[in-house]
């Protein structure tokens, strides 16, 4: 036992001092956490603060009388908190040029005769008020801005009717979020936590583990160890303990950051949630061992590890729900163990994102684990370099 522990200590020290290990296991996931929460945190919570599109306005006549209603509307959507930053143009050509070179997202043209038409429509309820909106087809920011302005104008129309009509019927609308408990609001920082945790686990299990095993084999370090009394099982146990320890360290760091910086709630201390993370560690480690079984060379292990890492990250639902992908890709989603592992953790936080039952969330990764361990066991001698 002491021999194994001493060896574990040596392995761990060697690993933790390597910058690459520190970087991929600790630093990179935290940077990604920061980027994702900064970028998507606002979007996900529906917080429109900070979102702004550029609106170019071309007035072919000054707005007066009832025409000022439009000025008020435009003013309200461009003020603090509004989704637009507006700029007036003297002529359409200039505005369209700026639209095409990206300085404006949409251009609204208030044509000649708008004042008269507004008066006719509002006072006499005769005729309508045509406005023109130019947008760039295919460009997301332009399309979204166009849709938003379109919806705003719809609301304006309804508001006008409301003021004209005494018996106006309001349609109430409510939201029903089926993926979370009713009392729970959606917190992206919390939602993303299991994804980042799994990313840290994967970086150790898919990079450090197979690369370490292969590196020690090809460099001859293993050979030296085999001339000592260290047993294969002791060696392997030390390797496993070292991996687990590295993962635990990275998770502790993540917990600290999540609690102090991102104010993630206490669900991450739920014992079931913690157990799910431990389960993820076991499954991921076994997966990494399977990678080591198939890769003869260091370069192969790196390539396979990186590919699997990226695929599992993005298609395993770590950051974005993936169940709306076309079936050409969706089968991959259902194949990956990370899909189930991250969903399992999220279930214990109160989210139900994936259309997968709890049983399958446990069984599928278990199948992967058994399969991976079996493959590794069959290839053990080859991986470790025993003759």
């Amino acid at each position, binding site marked *: 036992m002491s021999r194994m522990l001493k060896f574990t200590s040596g392995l761990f020290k060697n690993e933790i001092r390597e910058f*690459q290990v520190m970087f991929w296991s600790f630093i990179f996931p935290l940077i990604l956490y920061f980027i994702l929460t900064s*970028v998507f945190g606002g979007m996900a919570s529906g917080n429109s603060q900070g979102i702004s599109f550029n609106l170019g306005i071309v007035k072919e006549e000054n707005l007066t009388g009832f025409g000022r209603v439009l000025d008020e509307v435009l003013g309200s959507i461009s003020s603090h908190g509004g989704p637009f930053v507006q700029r007036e143009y003297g002529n359409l050509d200039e505005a369209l040029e700026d639209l095409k070179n990206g300085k404006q997202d949409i251009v609204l043209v208030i044509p000649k005769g708008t004042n008269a038409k507004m008066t006719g429509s509002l006072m006499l309820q005769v005729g309508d008020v045509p406005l023109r909106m130019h947008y760039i087809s295919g460009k997301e920011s332009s399309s979204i801005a166009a849709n938003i302005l379109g*919806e705003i104008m719809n609301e304006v129309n309804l508001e006008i009717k409301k003021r004209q009509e005494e018996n*106006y019927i309001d349609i109430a609308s*409510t939201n029903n*979020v089926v*993926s979370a408990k009713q009392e729970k609001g959606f917190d992206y920082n919390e939602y993303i936590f299991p994804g980042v945790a799994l990313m840290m686990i994967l970086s150790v299990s898919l990079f450090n583990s197979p690369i370490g095993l292969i590196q020690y084999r090809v460099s001859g370090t293993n050979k030296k160890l085999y001339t000592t009394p260290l047993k294969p099982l002791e060696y392997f146990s030390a390797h496993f303990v070292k991996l687990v320890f590295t993962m635990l360290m990275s998770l502790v760091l993540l917990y600290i950051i999540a609690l102090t910086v991102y104010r993630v709630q206490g669900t991450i201390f739920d014992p079931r949630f913690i157990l799910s993370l431990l389960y993820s560690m076991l499954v991921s480690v076994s997966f990494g061992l399977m990678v080591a079984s198939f890769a003869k060379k260091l370069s192969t292990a790196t390539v396979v590890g990186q590919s699997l890492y*990226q695929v599992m990250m993005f298609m395993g639902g770590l950051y974005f729900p993936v169940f*709306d992908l076309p079936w050409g890709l969706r089968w991959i989603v259902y194949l990956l163990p990370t899909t189930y592992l991250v969903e399992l953790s999220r279930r214990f936080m109160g989210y139900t994102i994936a259309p997968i039952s709890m049983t399958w969330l446990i069984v599928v990764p278990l199948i992967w684990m058994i399969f991976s361990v079996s493959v590794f066991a069959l290839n053990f001698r080859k991986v470790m370099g025993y003759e």
Partner: protein
Amino acid sequence: MSKSKLKPMFIAFAKEAFRNKLEVFFTLFFPMLFLILFGFFFSGSGGYSKSKLGLFQSGTMDIKPIIEESGAWSVTIYETRDKLLEAVSGGEVLLGVTFDGTGIEYSYREGDLSQRSTITMAQSSISAAVEKRINDAKTVIVLEKIPETAGRTTATDADYTMSGVIAISILSAGMFSVISVFGRYRKRGVLKRFKITPVKPMTFILGSTLTRFLVSFVSILLIILVSKLLFKTTFQIDWPIFLISVISSTLGMMALGLFLTLIFKNPETADSAASILMVIMIFLAGIYFPLAFLPDYLRVVSMFMPVKYVGELMRHSLGIELLPVMNFVLINLVLSLCGIALLYFTGRRYLKAS
């Protein structure tokens, strides 16, 4: 510069690059992986099919035609509310609408950020449309939507996304390749070996970087081909402009990589720093989703991302979004000059006798 020395140098580096499994993977296939993943995530499923909406209505009024009028939804009727909610949970439909004649309940799954804006828009547009119908509200303000094209072609979502993938591919090929040449080769003593030969620094630089240009081009052509097949992109490539843009962009991205090798002596550290930069640029350069969605402080950061400008060059040369001539020239000039200057400086530093 001796052409006779350049040729064997170029051939040797080209062989090395294409035989190096790792390098081939990261410069050719890795961007392809990103293309497919990000292409489906950020441009939807090619924009072919309408999003699915489930409807349960218990009042007398049928709002199905109202919803379908928008053209954005494919509506399925459910017999009960429970069945509708099951369909939403199961992912059969993106949005569930329950209408009882007086109010609308919108049911959806949280967390799907790529669909968040679609759901939000749907909520307001459906409610407004239903309210309008019920109250027989006349449309006062009629907003005519006029699509414009910023380029030579009427672009689709996929075109924009794929141009971003190409920009990232150039970033990857340019940045990581020079770390390989000036970082790893330096560490292994390969540069030292060349130092004692009669090869001029510029010949070495050209020989090693021409290979990277070649790899970059091959990667981009592959991306264009795959994106045409998978995502039906409508690029109208102006080949001379495209060539200039790719060369200057690659030079510019090389400058970034060289900058990292000068700061970080250890090539592994430079690699790690490059990885972080790449992730930051993927998310913050306005390549895959609008900068409008970023908080103000991050939008400022994105102005300093070189790959944002590479994206603009790509959109220009693929005919998606044309740049003013001055901008085009300026961006190309800045990227090229930075690349050439740093290549020259780094070459002299590591290849001339100290």
